């Protein structure tokens, strides 16, 4: 990704972010057979890593340029505005989540699920739950990656300021912070105060910073290393070993028993286990090596739906979460047959692509109209401008 020039947009970022958005949607539809296609089944890391890394990359790339050209204050303001937009998106999704829970809780009395009724206990005190949710201390499942972004973006301005001057220093600091947080078991606490964030921001900041470091010239400086044969061989070997290990996990009966020293699964996702991190880095290195900046397929028609989704990532992420709720609703109310799971998966992706295409079309119309497009809609998830 080191070939990025300020003038050209790296379509690989959009492509893979679009792909991770599709995967996140498919994985979020509960018990969906189509999620067999997603990356998490074939290795240690999943779409979350791809997403956090690319977001760190684009945030540093875009806001780094703003900060360099227009100063710290303007750059910081743009970053905080983005954090605010993500917060609003989070609250928007929260409303859908609470609506579905409220519906189920008031109609549901099947004794088969008496144990699961416990989830409604939280909503006995709506005042407390709503306030805790607005303060990011009550995070529903499937939406919890957004609060991670809010926190990462809120603290990003000083990090970026330092990163523009001493990138390696920031990277080392981030690595040190990751280990210190691990040793002292730091995480943010959640209501009702006996558990903590599913995406531990003290751990996941590392991937965000690695992304930013790569965007600000780090990838270029280490390109001789990541293109060297031993490193490539190591990456291939690591991925080749991870795939059967992860697959064996899904077929406990077929593969039988593994020796004790291979029992590294399940890997800690909350604390971004090193196995997961290295798995993602291995994939990233191979992608940089084998998918050139100007790869032909990136401009082909079949890559276009993915790229469109990747270019509107905040909107498409939110839409994806909303669609996963809807898909779940259809699977429980209409039918949960496998054919239906495949059907709702394809419809969901089609809706995501259509929405992204409409947004791109609207942006284009606005631009041709001669008026500058409103800045809020011009930006991707981390403010990647389309121009």
């Amino acid at each position, binding site marked *: 990704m080191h070939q990025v020039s300020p003038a050209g947009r790296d379509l690989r970022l959009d492509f893979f972010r679009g792909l991770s958005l599709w995967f996140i949607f498919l994985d979020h539809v509960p018990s969906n057979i189509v999620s067999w296609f997603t990356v998490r089944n074939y290795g240690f890391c999943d779409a979350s890593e791809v997403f956090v890394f690319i977001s760190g990359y684009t945030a540093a790339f875009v806001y780094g340029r703003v900060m360099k050209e227009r100063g710290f204050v303007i750059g910081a303001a743009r970053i905080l505005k983005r954090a605010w937009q993500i917060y609003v998106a989070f609250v928007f999704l929260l409303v859908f989540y609470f609506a579905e829970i409220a519906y189920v809780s008031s109609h549901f009395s099947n004794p088969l699920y008496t144990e*699961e009724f416990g989830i409604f206990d939280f909503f006995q005190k709506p005042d407390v739950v709503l306030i805790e949710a607005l303060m990011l201390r009550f995070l529903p499942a499937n939406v919890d990656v957004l609060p991670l972004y809010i926190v990462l973006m809120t603290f990003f301005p000083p990090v970026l300021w330092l990163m523009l001057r001493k990138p390696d220093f920031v990277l080392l600091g981030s690595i040190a912070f990751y280990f210190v947080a691990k040793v002292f078991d730091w995480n943010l606490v959640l209501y009702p105060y006996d*558990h903590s964030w599913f995406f531990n921001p003290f751990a996941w900041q590392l991937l965000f910073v690695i992304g930013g470091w790569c965007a600000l010239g780090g990838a270029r400086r280490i390109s001789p290393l990541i293109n060297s044969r031993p490193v490539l061989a190591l990456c291939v070997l690591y991925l080749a070993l991870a795939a059967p290990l992860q697959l064996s996990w899904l077929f406990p009966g077929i593969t039988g028993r593994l020796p004790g020293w291979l029992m590294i699964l399940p890997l800690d996702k909350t604390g971004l286990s090193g196995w997961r991190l290295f798995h993602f880095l291995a994939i990233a290195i191979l992608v940089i090596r084998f998918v050139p900046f100007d790869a032909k397929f990136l401009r082909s028609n079949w890559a276009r739906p993915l790229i469109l989704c990747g270019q509107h990532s905040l909107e498409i992420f939110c839409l994806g979460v909303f669609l996963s709720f809807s898909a779940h609703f259809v699977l429980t109310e209409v039918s949960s047959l496998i054919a239906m799971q495949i059907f709702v998966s394809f419809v969901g992706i089609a809706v995501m692509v259509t929405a992204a295409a409409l947004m791109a079309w609207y942006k284009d119309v606005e631009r041709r109209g001669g008026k500058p497009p409103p800045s809020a809609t011009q930006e991707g998830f981390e403010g990647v401008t389309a121009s």
Partner: protein
Amino acid sequence: MRTFSVPLLLVLLAASPYAAADDCDVPDNLVETFARLPHVDLSAKHDHKLEILVLSAAPKLSGEASTLKSYPYYLESELRERLKGVDVHVFAQSEPRKTIVEVAKDLPRFLSERQPVLVIWQTGTVEAMRGIDPDGYGRALDAGVAALQRGGADVILVNQQFSPRTDFMFDGAPYTENMRWVSQTRDIPLFNRYEVMKYWGETGAFDLTALKNDGTYEKVHRCIGRLIADLVIRAASLSGTVER
């Protein structure tokens, strides 16, 4: 990935034929285990008795539902039916809404009170609903299983059930993964209730989405009791010897 996944999908599609209604059958790969239950084996063959404890954090059924029979009941009648000459007792110990850390404290008491040779430990639901750290859950479960094994009991883990209507509200998968890790390192069976029930839901064997009481409760629990009985008999190598 595509070249690999399309055949995989076809295999999965082919492996899930429509089951007849009220049929407990599931594909073998959902219920097979490599682990053994030596204490159960010994107790059934030599002492001709089986003291089984079913431990769960499920609340008691209330109102009209309080007379419904659950899987411990069906497990007991199934084992009594199939293991003639063996005195089978299944006792259901419920610790409503308690997390694993709270339940683990009481394990020595359960062991001394009932002296079970087998503990069927249903866990993971409360922890998933409350979002307890899955890693910490795995460690607590591992310690709990070790304590039960030291106390002379075999253990079968039972994970959360498949509840389509609440599926999107909390994610039980990380807890099942940790249970699988404990089951492999401690060499004990894991009865994957979630996958089994999901199979029934997907094949239409049972309608698991009803909002009200529609009589599915006892049908599902009878099947779970029967499948766990199968698992006990297989893992303790009781078929053919004690079994009728």
